């Protein structure tokens, strides 16, 4: 076969030309989206990509069950764009040029309060690297690891103040001595003062997470010994309430309300009468529903559905469908480290018996149990 030398030459030339043009053409192809955006060449395609981004952002929204939860503010209500945040003037053109916080914070670790960013985690993970000094880029923050534990009254967990997480952002002189005197007993800190913008309130609620996040500071639970002491004090307090009943009625601005309060306390402390007629199932359920609506529905829901990740449901609950004694124990004494409070000081035995009967036989639960006052009295000892 005779090869055509010119064909081979042309082929090689074409190959060389192609190689030379490859890089510039590649650059042109990569820059095409930027050009399209700048000159609005393909508006439909841009809109579609924005819709796709929006959809994927929507997928990160909490589920409808969690949106119902009163403890969570809806996705639509925080980190609003500058034109809708109530801070920036929406009619100023410059406001529209500002980057929306949700866009800026999209890649940062999430939190449940404030602007929904866990800034401490973002710093620890190295996602953000704020400079320690405005002028000196080499300057580092002087971290200081020392915890201060402040005991608080009652069963509320004690406060732990960690210097470490604060000194990752702040210098000693940011707080000492103008906000906190660095001396034991030198600061009369109270939640009221904090809510009014003093002490911790200088920053928290403004540029740091708000004080509605109790557990972030009240993070050291009371020991079992301390809790036992608290319960002992509470039962001792019942005696002083009896003394209160015996004392003459004080002149109050709201005598009706105080009377009702005293009546409620009196009713609560009434010993059950042995001759009291036993209630029928119908009466127990009716009374139980009344007590449930008044006291339990706020957390466990009107239909016993609970609130996901916050308050457990009554419907189908293992405790409610389990042994009566355990159910009674929890209602009487509450559950440590949860929002479930003890009801033995709030409701009398007849009311507790009725509400437990109701819970075990309502909302789809069909235990058929009738809980009696005597059972409650026995289990409360």
């Amino acid at each position, binding site marked *: 076969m005779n090869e055509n030398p010119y064909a081979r030459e042309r082929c090689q030339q074409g190959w060389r030309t192609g190689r030379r043009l490859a890089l510039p053409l590649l650059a042109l192809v990569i*820059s095409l989206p930027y050009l399209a955006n700048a000159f609005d060449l393909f508006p439909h395609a841009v809109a579609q990509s924005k819709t796709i981004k929006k959809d994927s952002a929507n997928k990160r929204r909490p589920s409808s069950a969690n949106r119902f939860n009163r403890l969570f503010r809806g996705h639509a209500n925080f980190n609003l764009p500058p034109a809708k945040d109530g801070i920036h003037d929406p009619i100023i*053109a410059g406001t529209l040029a500002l980057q929306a916080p949700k866009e800026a914070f999209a890649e940062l670790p999430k939190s449940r309060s404030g602007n929904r960013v866990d800034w401490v985690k973002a710093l620890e993970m190295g996602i953000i690297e704020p400079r320690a000094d405005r002028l000196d880029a080499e300057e580092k923050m002087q971290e200081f690891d*020392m915890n201060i534990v402040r005991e608080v009254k009652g069963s509320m967990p004690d406060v732990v103040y960690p210097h470490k997480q604060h000194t990752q952002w702040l210098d000693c002189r940011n707080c000492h001595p103008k906000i906190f005197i660095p001396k034991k007993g030198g600061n009369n800190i109270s939640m009221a003062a904090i809510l009014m913008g003093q002490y911790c309130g200088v920053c928290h609620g403004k540029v740091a997470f708000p004080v509605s996040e109790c557990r972030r500071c009240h993070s050291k639970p009371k020991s079992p010994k301390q809790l036992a002491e608290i319960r002992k004090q509470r039962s001792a307090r019942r005696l002083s309430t009896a003394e*209160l009943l015996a004392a003459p009625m004080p002149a109050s601005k709201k005598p009706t309300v105080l009377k009702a309060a005293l009546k409620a306390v009196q009713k609560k402390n009434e010993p059950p009468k042995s001759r009291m007629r036993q209630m029928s199932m119908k009466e127990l359920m009716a009374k139980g529903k009344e007590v449930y609506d008044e006291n339990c529905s706020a957390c466990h829901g009107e239909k016993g559905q609970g609130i996901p990740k916050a308050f457990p449901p009554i419907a189908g609950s293992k405790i409610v469908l389990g042994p009566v004694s355990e159910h009674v124990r929890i209602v009487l004494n509450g559950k440590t480290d949860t929002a479930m409070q003890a009801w033995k000081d709030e409701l009398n035995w007849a009311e507790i018996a009725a509400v437990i009967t109701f819970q075990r036989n309502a909302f789809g639960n069909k235990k058929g149990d009738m809980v009696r006052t005597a059972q409650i009295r026995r289990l409360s000892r």
Partner: protein
Amino acid sequence: MRIFRGILIIFVGIMFIGSDVLSAKKRMPVTEISVKQKANVVIKLLTKSVIVKSIKNSSNNEAKATLKKARSLLGEANADLGAGNFAKADKTLNRSINLITMTARQVVTKEDRRSRMKKRYTARRDAVRAILQAYDRVAKEKGLTTGQEIRDEVVQNLNKGEELFRQNKLTEAIEVTNGTYLLATQITRKLRQGDVLVRRLSFKNKEEEYVYEIDRNDSHFLFLKMALKRKAPHPMYLKKIEKLRDLAQALREDAETKAGKNRHEEAISVLGDGTKHLIRAIRMAGIFIPG
């Protein structure tokens, strides 16, 4: 071919850079409304602002001349705006803003600078003193026998800074105090690193405990107010919450009456009950209080 390739690469490079610029302009379009808004801002800046007052009160003639120029630029911009030439008006307004903001730096008087430096010095000095006091307390508590030389160095430097301050050498005083501050924080940090301090709750008498309970009660009332504002609970829950709040208020009044008669122990008990009702109300409003 090479020339063509070179031109293509340069073109693409310019587009990369240019597209950013164009995108920025798209985010902040120059329209009649945006330029009028900017003009309103510049009018206030050149007539009522603190910068203008400072320039007028100063003896800096150069700054006064710059203010005049900035105002004339504003006049030009308004004329362009009236003629519908928005892009030109926008550029002129930007020039006017740049002029006046650069001038502001020149008119900061010596007095202003001195006053700021004095504040800076006293803040640092007070911080060093507070930290040194803390160091002395902790060193005594821990029975520290070493480190006295460094502590003495801190005190010496503090005194040196104070002397320089008295001599009006503010820059040197601040520099010395900065160094002293770093040293003081370093030695204190070393002493306390890793410690856990516990502030136990103890009361000298029932009156003190009553004051604590009143504070606690106040806190919960405030918290409930905040919860109601933030959470806007359902009307069904709101009725119950208000009932609990009224109950707590009545108990508070009763407690205050008792405390007035020196029956602090009973007052504490009653206040505790009132606070319990408030906690329930706050939880009902949708904020979880642990405990």
